[in-house]
């Protein structure tokens, strides 16, 4: 049994969102602790594709995403590392006229949010991007987008948060939480007793499980995008690539490796393991050589995946709980939360201090799922940790 901890804010989940929240809360002088089942940034935040893009997002996410983009430029002053972020631009490809029309629609809509997206077709496409395959008919380019190294971003935020005074507990899952008159009470796998005025649920694919402890139901589906990386090639791909339809995406790092993805792999949600899936993996290779024919002879040296929570409308839940004052959620980023993470941390801090945010959050309200079926994985191991805590059971 590890001692008792009395906090202003407890954070469940050490992804980018959680680590960034810990940094901002600690910087403003709160007593804050973050609990992470494994190690910080070892789940979706640490294994994702590394795309940092506003391009192609649901318009509801754009204000938050715009805010995030400004923070990416400031990472060195914020966490003492640039996270290997490079504003390479993001080029989204169309392989049919229909797809080109969808890119045009996005570009028009994005202008309302001040996001510049250029449409590129015909001779200019070949002149500017001679390395594209012949099936590509057009593209849209968002120059301010880019890419970063996911493996070091969340740990960088965690390190900065620690330096600002936050406590970060790794290998320590929160097994249950409830709220009573005194505030929140948490119990961790090490038997630590924690009390906190505010509770932040940034538990990623497991966020719905935490929400369920407080009677809130979000139909999250845990999925595992298949990722692959090749041996190094000469650096030729100066821009992050996506396609309309999303069945393949690719980027090259200056060291030469091409990182690409497409399709969904396999996961064991209970055991927290995942892998890129065979059929998908080979299909994605075909699609890669289709858009970038010069990758044809390269070798794939590694594949992987991770576990990410997808909501039915594929935008996250961000905002206060509907059932429990002091509980704030931010999870279900549906495959595109890496870029948002740094801004989510700021937004969470604003919500803690003022109850509101300068960024519009209405589309992300948890209430939109009221009445939905019980989430995957909410059942747990059969032991009801909350009932056990209420009965004062000790372990």
């Amino acid at each position, binding site marked *: 049994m590890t001692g008792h901890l009395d906090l202003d804010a407890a954070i469940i989940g050490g992804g980018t969102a959680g680590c960034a929240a810990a940094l901002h809360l600690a910087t403003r002088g709160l007593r804050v602790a973050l609990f992470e089942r494994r190690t910080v940034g070892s789940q979706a935040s640490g294994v994702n594709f590394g795309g940092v893009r506003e391009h192609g997002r649901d318009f509801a996410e754009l204000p938050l995403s715009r805010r995030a983009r400004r923070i990416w430029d400031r990472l060195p002053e914020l966490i003492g590392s640039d996270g290997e972020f490079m504003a390479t631009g993001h080029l989204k490809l169309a392989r049919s006229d229909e797809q080109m029309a969808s890119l045009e629609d996005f570009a028009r809509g994005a202008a309302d949010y001040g996001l510049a997206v250029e449409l590129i077709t015909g001779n200019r496409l070949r002149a500017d991007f001679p*390395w594209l395959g012949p099936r590509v008919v057009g593209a849209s380019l968002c120059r301010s987008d880019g890419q970063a190294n996911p493996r070091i971003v969340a740990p960088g935020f965690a390190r900065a948060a620690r330096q600002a005074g936050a406590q970060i507990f790794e290998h320590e899952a929160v097994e249950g939480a409830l709220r009573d008159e005194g505030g929140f009470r948490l119990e961790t796998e090490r038997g630590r007793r924690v009390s906190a005025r505010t509770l932040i649920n940034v538990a990623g694919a497991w966020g719905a499980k935490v929400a369920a402890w407080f009677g809130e139901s979000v139909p999250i589906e845990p999925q595992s995008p298949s990722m692959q990386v090749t041996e*190094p090639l*000469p650096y*030729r791909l100066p821009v992050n690539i996506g396609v309309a339809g999303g069945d393949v995406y690719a980027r090259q790092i200056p*060291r030469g490796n091409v990182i690409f993805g497409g399709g969904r792999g396999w996961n064991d949600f209970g055991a927290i393991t995942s892998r890129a899936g065979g059929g998908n993996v080979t299909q994605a290779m075909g699609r890669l050589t289709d858009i970038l024919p010069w990758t044809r*002879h390269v*070798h794939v*040296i590694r594949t992987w995946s991770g576990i990410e929570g997808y909501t039915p409308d594929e935008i996250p839940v961000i905002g206060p709980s509907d059932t429990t004052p002091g509980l704030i959620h931010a999870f279900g980023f549906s495959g595109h939360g890496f870029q948002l993470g740094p801004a989510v941390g700021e937004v969470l801090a604003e919500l803690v201090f003022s109850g509101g945010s300068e960024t519009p959050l209405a589309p992300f309200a948890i209430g939109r799922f009221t009445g939905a079926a019980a989430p995957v994985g909410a059942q747990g191991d059969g032991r009801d940790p909350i009932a056990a805590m209420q009965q004062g059971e000790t372990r």
Partner: protein
Amino acid sequence: MSGARFRRLAETGRPRVAITVDGAPVEAMQGDTLMTAILTARGRLRVSEFGDGPRAGFCLMGACQDCWVRLEDGRRLRACTTFAEAGMAILTGAEEGADAF
């Protein structure tokens, strides 16, 4: 470029196989791996992508992956586990970058 690295100790009566290494003709023997074919004539197989110099393989058993060579037709072959075939045109230098387009 430095001279030959491997030295043949026996089995030298085999039929010859003509390949090229960096454009120059090299006479290999039937049953030579690409590694043997190249290193009995040259000092390296490739150069490291990260600027730390030439490489000439390491394990010879398909484990270390340090012997991949490029062919002029774009293929990449693991030199220690691939037999030399007549007409193979091998490149041991650094690959060209964006200016290749």
